[in-house]
């Protein structure tokens, strides 16, 4: 563990905000699994986008080299983050931008609220942003009498429905077209009552609804996909153009961004602009890329602010084996290929970050000690599909296993009564730590037949194994282990040879 990052204190400061799940994953997952509509919607959406991604990725002969390059750049950024942040701050400030540093969600929210008040506004338009969801900005602003309007279509749907996003790129992935039409009819004041559920009509309704907001808003809030240290430039990548309206029309622009989004230089964008759109929407290039460097007199926002958010990132950075989770460019490819996400949806993960990346990022940012977040690293069969899909090659399965070991370790010696799993693992370790002991236990295995019925299947097991037999039979153990058979066979050979 290094203790030099960002002047990090010896005890890591963990993140707060929408990073904690309220209940353990298996409990939440069980509830979501019962939602047939959700599963159908998710299955359809993830399969469509998955196939699209595979097609456009296959077009690039150098995809693996690009992933390598992206991964290497991100690793280099993590290795010298404090230095790059300083360089970025210098350049951003020199071009008329203002930087604010926020240690956690509460600090970031306060800074943004004060900036909005200074601008004399009580309404803001928002560009889709994960960082502001992470800190719970909309809810916070609402409590303080400021209305925040999401302008991304999917984000708008979720907001209008008073729901939570369930995917980082397609927040309304769990809803289908007719559900969306119903939400619009219910929640948009001047919507056409004959609205149909064709995508074009839905998009048009949203456009009319948003236009008024764009033209009246004095303040916009955005996230950022990248920040370039050598020029002090921020970048937002999007599909609809609503983001660009927010980034250019209002007088004041406030961006909230995690410190890990930095790239060393403008030229690094080349790699990431190839990796990101193909991985996220399965497009060769996204329709809108907006880049801004400080303030340009008479053009665009004249007050440009950036809130640089730590919120547990220093703690994640200090974890050498988990650090690469910060390489994430929020493309969502991992959740689109994840068999667990596909069946539970994003809400089961509780935090802003669902799917495989959420299963590692949330506990890294908050620490593994909360019991609920400690359940997240187990929300994976370790099938490895996420690692294959990740454009910056984050070895998610390896980090999941690392975090599981942290969880097990953190519980060691603290609990008065060890759990069933702890006891079973200890016993299995003793047994499997020697061929001789294993052989002894195997001799007792045929007794397992007693547990099996006449059809030689075991249909009900107690304790932690009960979940298995809820939907699966176990075969009765065989009469003889391989080891035993081998020994007998070779005994015979040996004695025959002697004879």
């Amino acid at each position, binding site marked *: 563990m290094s203790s030099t990052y960002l002047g990090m204190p010896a005890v890591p400061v963990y993140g707060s905000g929408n990073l904690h799940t309220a209940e353990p994953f298996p409990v939440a997952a069980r509830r979501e699994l019962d939602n047939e509509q959700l599963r159908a919607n998710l299955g359809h959406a993830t399969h469509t986008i998955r196939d699209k991604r595979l097609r456009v990725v296959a077009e690039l002969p150098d995809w693996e080299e690009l992933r390598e390059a992206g991964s290497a750049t991100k690793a280099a950024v993590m290795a010298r983050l404090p230095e790059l942040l300083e360089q970025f701050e210098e350049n951003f400030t020199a071009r008329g931008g203002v930087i604010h540093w926020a240690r956690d969600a509460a600090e970031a929210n306060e800074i943004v609220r004060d900036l909005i008040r200074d601008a004399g506004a009580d309404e803001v338009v928002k560009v889709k942003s994960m960082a502001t969801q992470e800190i719970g900005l909309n809810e916070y602003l609402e409590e303080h009498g400021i209305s925040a309007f999401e302008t991304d279509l999917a984000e708008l749907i979720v907001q209008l429905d008073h729901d939570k996003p369930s995917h980082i790129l397609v927040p309304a992935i769990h809803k289908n077209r007719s559900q969306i039409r119903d939400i619009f009819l219910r929640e948009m004041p001047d919507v056409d009552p004959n609205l149909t559920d064709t995508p074009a009509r839905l998009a048009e309704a949203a456009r009319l609804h948003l236009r008024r907001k764009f033209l009246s808003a004095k303040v916009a809030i955005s996230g950022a996909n990248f920040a370039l240290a050598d020029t002090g430039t921020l970048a937002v990548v999007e599909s609809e153009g609503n983001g660009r309206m927010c980034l250019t029309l209002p007088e004041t622009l406030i961006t909230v961004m995690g410190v890990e989004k930095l790239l060393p230089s403008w030229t690094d964008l080349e790699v990431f602009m190839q990796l990101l759109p193909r991985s996220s929407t399965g497009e060769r290039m996204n329709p809108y890329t907006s880049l801004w460097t400080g303030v340009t007199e008479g053009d665009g926002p004249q007050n440009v602010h950036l809130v640089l958010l730590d919120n547990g990132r220093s703690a994640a950075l200090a974890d050498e084996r988990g650090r690469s989770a910060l390489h994430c460019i929020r493309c969502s490819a991992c959740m689109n290929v994840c068999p667990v996400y596909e069946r539970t949806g994003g809400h089961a993960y509780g935090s802003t970050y669902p799917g495989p990346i959420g299963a590692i990022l949330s506990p890294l940012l908050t620490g593994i000690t909360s019991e609920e977040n400690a359940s997240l690293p187990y929300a994976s069969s370790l099938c490895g599909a996420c690692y294959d899909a990740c454009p910056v090659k984050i070895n998610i399965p390896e980090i999941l296993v690392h975090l599981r070991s942290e969880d097990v370790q953190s519980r060691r010696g603290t609990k008065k009564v060890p759990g069933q799993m702890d006891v079973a693992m200890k016993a299995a370790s003793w047994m499997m730590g020697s061929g001789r002991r294993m052989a002894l236990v195997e001799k007792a295995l045929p007794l397992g037949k007693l547990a099996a019925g006449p059809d030689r*299947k075991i249909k009900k097991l107690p304790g932690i194994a009960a979940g298995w037999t809820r939907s699966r039979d176990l075969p*009765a153990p*065989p009469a003889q282990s391989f080891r035993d058979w081998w*020994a007998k066979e070779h005994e015979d050979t040996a004695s025959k040879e002697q004879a």
Partner: protein
Amino acid sequence: MKIALFATCIVDAMYPSTARATVSILERLGHDVVFPAGQACCGQMHLNSGYFTEAVPVVRNHIEAFEAEEYDVAVAPSGSCVASVKHQHAMLARSVGDSDLETRATAVGARTYELSALLTDVLGVTDAAAQLGSWYPHRITYHPSCHGMRLLRLGDRQANLLRTVEGLELEPLPEADQCCGFGGTFSLKNADVSSAMLADKNANIAATGAQLCSGGDASCLMHIGGGLSREGSGISTLHFAEILASTREHPAPPPGAVRGGSRSAARLAGKGRQ
């Protein structure tokens, strides 16, 4: 060539016929098989569940057992166990700061092969019927397990070997690359999600019309087979080693006759190994 068999704990205890089939294939090719008696388990279950402290004696035992024997290569009829030996043992040794064990783990890992990789890449088996006398006149489908597919990059090796078995018809499995939902203790800790994944896998298997699903990992097959059995589908599972080992003289049990490990073990045991 002298080949050390790593039977893996689950095959040794629950599916002995798979290990015996592996021995039979290797001996038919003219190789010497040894069974390091000290072996027990690769420690994958402990490692993947985060029980690193408990994994250490298991991993150490594996390394010692395979160092104790003289052999050219080691083989296991299991992609996930080989992936653990190759990718996790050295990592564990490193994480507990034992550099000597790390070196030894790397050495054992380097000469350990998954069965289809050994057959294809080292022993030059391209035609199971011609080289092994493999005969299994049934329509089957095949599920490639995640660890073999992604960590070991086995590609089509297992399926290609199956395709060359005389009489065998291989039905492609829709969404074959999707995880079956086993995942070791995942199937206990997140039993409901695991069951949902399994249900989809088994629906895909049923859609092929085949009466048997083969694969290269006994644990995945136990999981898939357990679900098929509970559904009363009549579809069974069988490790690809047993299909490669199947001949006209000593056929593996036909689809439907295989139920769990016991029945096929009993049948093979009845035939004996001459």
